C-alpha cells in the first residue's frame, strides 16, 4: 500500500457550527493505482485530497505512507514529504505568472536540486514530454488553458513523485482538451507507475480510474474497483 488512512476527520469551525468536511474516513490506496473521486459539491473531495498530499492537517486520524506513519502535525516534515513524494495538479493550474513555462518547472526542481544547468535540462525534457518544447519561454498568460495545464503537469512530475494528486484538472478545459489531459494522466499512471488520485465532477473522467470513489458529506459512499 502506498497510502493507508485511518479514521480521518477534518472539522471546520464555521459561524453556523462545526462541520466535518471529512468524516471518520478510512481508505487504502495501492501503489500504482488510479483513484478517481467524485461527489456533490461540498462533499469533501478537495479536503481529502489536501490531506493526502500533506497540504492540510486533519483534525484527527492517522496516515501511513509506504507503511510508515506520518507526523501530520509537523509542518516541516509535511513540506519535505510534499517535495519528495507528491505532485499536484490544480483546476486553476497554479502557475507563477511572472515565470516562463521553463522557469515554473525549474523552480520546482530547485526545491531538491540547486544545479541550475541540470534543472534546466530536466525542465526541457519534461516540457518536451508534455509536447511544449516550443513554448519554453512563454509566460502562462501567453499559453492556452490546455497548454498551461500541461506545464502544470510537467511541474507536478518534476521531482519524480510517487503520488500525483489532481483536483478537477479538467474543470477549466473544454471536452477535447479534457480528454487530452486525462490521456496524459493515464499515461503517467500506466507508463511510469505513478499512483494517481484525481478529483472530478465528470462521470466520463471518473471512468479513467481503476478505483472509483464517491463521497457524501465527508464519508465514503461507494467504492468501485
Amino acid at each position: 500500500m502506498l497510502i493507508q488512512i485511518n479514521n480521518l476527520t477534518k472539522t471546520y469551525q464555521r459561524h453556523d457550527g462545526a462541520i466535518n468536511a471529512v468524516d471518520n474516513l478510512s481508505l487504502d490506496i495501492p501503489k500504482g493505482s488510479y483513484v478517481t473521486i467524485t461527489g456533490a459539491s461540498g462533499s469533501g473531495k478537495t479536503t481529502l485530497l489536501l490531506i493526502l498530499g500533506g497540504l492540510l492537517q486533519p483534525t484527527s486520524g492517522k496516515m501511513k505512507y509506504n507503511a510508515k506513519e506520518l507526523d501530520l502535525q509537523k509542518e516541516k516534515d509535511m513540506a519535505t514529504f510534499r517535495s519528495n513524494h507528491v505532485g499536484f495538479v490544480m483546476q486553476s493550474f497554479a502557475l507563477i505568472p511572472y515565470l516562463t513555462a521553463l522557469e515554473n518547472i525549474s523552480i520546482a526542481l530547485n526545491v531538491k536540486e540547486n544545479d541550475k544547468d541540470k534543472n534546466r535540462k530536466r525542465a526541457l525534457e519534461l516540457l518536451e514530454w508534455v509536447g511544449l518544447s516550443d513554448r519554453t519561454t512563454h509566460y502562462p498568460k501567453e499559453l492556452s488553458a490546455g497548454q498551461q495545464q500541461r506545464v502544470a503537469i510537467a511541474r507536478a512530475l518534476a521531482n519524480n513523485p510517487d503520488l500525483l494528486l489532481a483536483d478537477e484538472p479538467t474543470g477549466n478545459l473544454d471536452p477535447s482538451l479534457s480528454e487530452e489531459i486525462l490521456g496524459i494522466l493515464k499515461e503517467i499512471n500506466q507508463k511510469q507507475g505513478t499512483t494517481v488520485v484525481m478529483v472530478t465532477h465528470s462521470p466520463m473522467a471518473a471512468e479513467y480510474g481503476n478505483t472509483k470513489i464517491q463521497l457524501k458529506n465527508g464519508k465514503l459512499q461507494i467504492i468501485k474497483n
Partner: protein
Amino acid sequence: MRLIDLTIKELWHRKSQLTSGLLAITLGIGVIVGIRTISVVSEKAVAVNLDNLGANILVLPQATSVDNYYSADIDAPTFPESYVEKIVTSTLPGVDNMSPKLSRRVKIGNENIVLTGILPKSEIASKPIWQQNGIQGNKVNASCAPKPGTAPAKYLDPKLQRKGIQDLAESDCFVGSAVAQRLNLKEQGTLTIEKKSFSIVKVLPETGTVDDDRVFANLHTVQKLLATGEQISAIEIMGCCSAISDGLLSKMRNILPDTRITTIGQIVSTQIETNRMMNKISLVFLIIILFVGSISIGNYIWANVNERRKEIGILRMIGYHKRHIYYILVLKALIMGIVGGIAGYIVGTLAAVWLGPQFIGIVVSPIYTLLLLSIGLSIFISVLGSLIPAYMAGKIEPFSNMQED
C-alpha cells in the same frame, strides 16, 4: 531558476510598485545624506574661516560692547599696551601672535574710515588671508581647524610657529579694499590723515569683513597721531582651539582681570550654531527615518505578500518550506535596501551639492564614505521592516492557491 532569480524576477515584474516602495527609503536616506554632507562641509568651512581670519581671541577693555567681533575694537575705551607683555610673560600655552591694536574712526574728506594702528610683525602673521595674497612670504602652518584623524593640535608644535614681518615704517600704511575704492587710492600713492601724510604700501585684498574699511598704520604712529599715549583698544590673539576649550580664556581673565576676553566663537557663532543644529536635525531625521522607513517598507512588503498569497501558496505546495518564504521576502527587502541606499546617497549628495552654495554659500563636494553608511542604514531599515510581513507570509497555507479564483 533559484529563489534569488525568482526574487529578482518578481521585483522586475512589479517595477512600478518597486519604484514607489523605493521612493520612501530613497528620500529618507537622501535627506540624511544631504544634511550630513552639508554639515560636514560647513564644519570644515567654519574651521577654515576661523583660520583665515587670523585671530580668534579678542582682549577688549571691560566697558566695550561686543556685538560684532570685527568692529568691537573701534572707538572702544583703551587699556595700556603693556598688557601684551603681561600675557607674554605668563607663558600660557596655546597663545601666539598677539596683535595689539588701536582703532579710531576718522574722517578723510567726507568719508568715514577706521584708522587702526597695528604692530605688523604679529598682526600680519596672524592674517593668513593677507599672506596668501602676497604681502609677505611668511609661512603660516598653524591651523585651528580640527584635522580629522589627528590628535588635537598642540600649540607648542614647531609647525605652529608663525613668523611676523619687520615693522611697518613710521609713515607707511595698508589700505583696505573698500577704503581704496571709496577714496580712489592706489598703491605707491599717498594718503593724508589728520594732517599726516602716509605712503600707501599696499591695497589689501577684499576680506569681506570690517577690515576692508580700515586703514592700517604703525601702532605707535597712530598713538602719537591720536594722542592716546601707550594705549590700545584691543589685543587680537591667535589661540589654539584645543587650548581655548581647555579653559584658556578663564586663565587669561585671571591675568587681565579688568578686561573683557571673548572668542570669535562667541560672536561669530551663527555658523557654528547652524552646524550644531544640523547635527541635531540629522539625528532627529535619522530616528524618524528609521521608524517611517521601516514602517513604509514593512507596509510595502505586506501589500506585496497579500498580492502574492496565491504564489506563496504555490511555492509551499511544491515543497518549499516556511524558511524559503522568509528568505525570498527578506532578500527582496535586502535588494531594495541596497538600491535605496545607493539611490538615496546619489539624491542626497546631488541635493547637497546643488543646494549648498545657494543656502549657506559654501561649495559642497561629495563625501564618499557616506555611501557605505547609507547602504548599511538602508539595508537595516528595510530588512527590519520586512521581518513582520515575512513572518506573516510564512503562515500562508500551502493550498491557498485553491481558495482563490
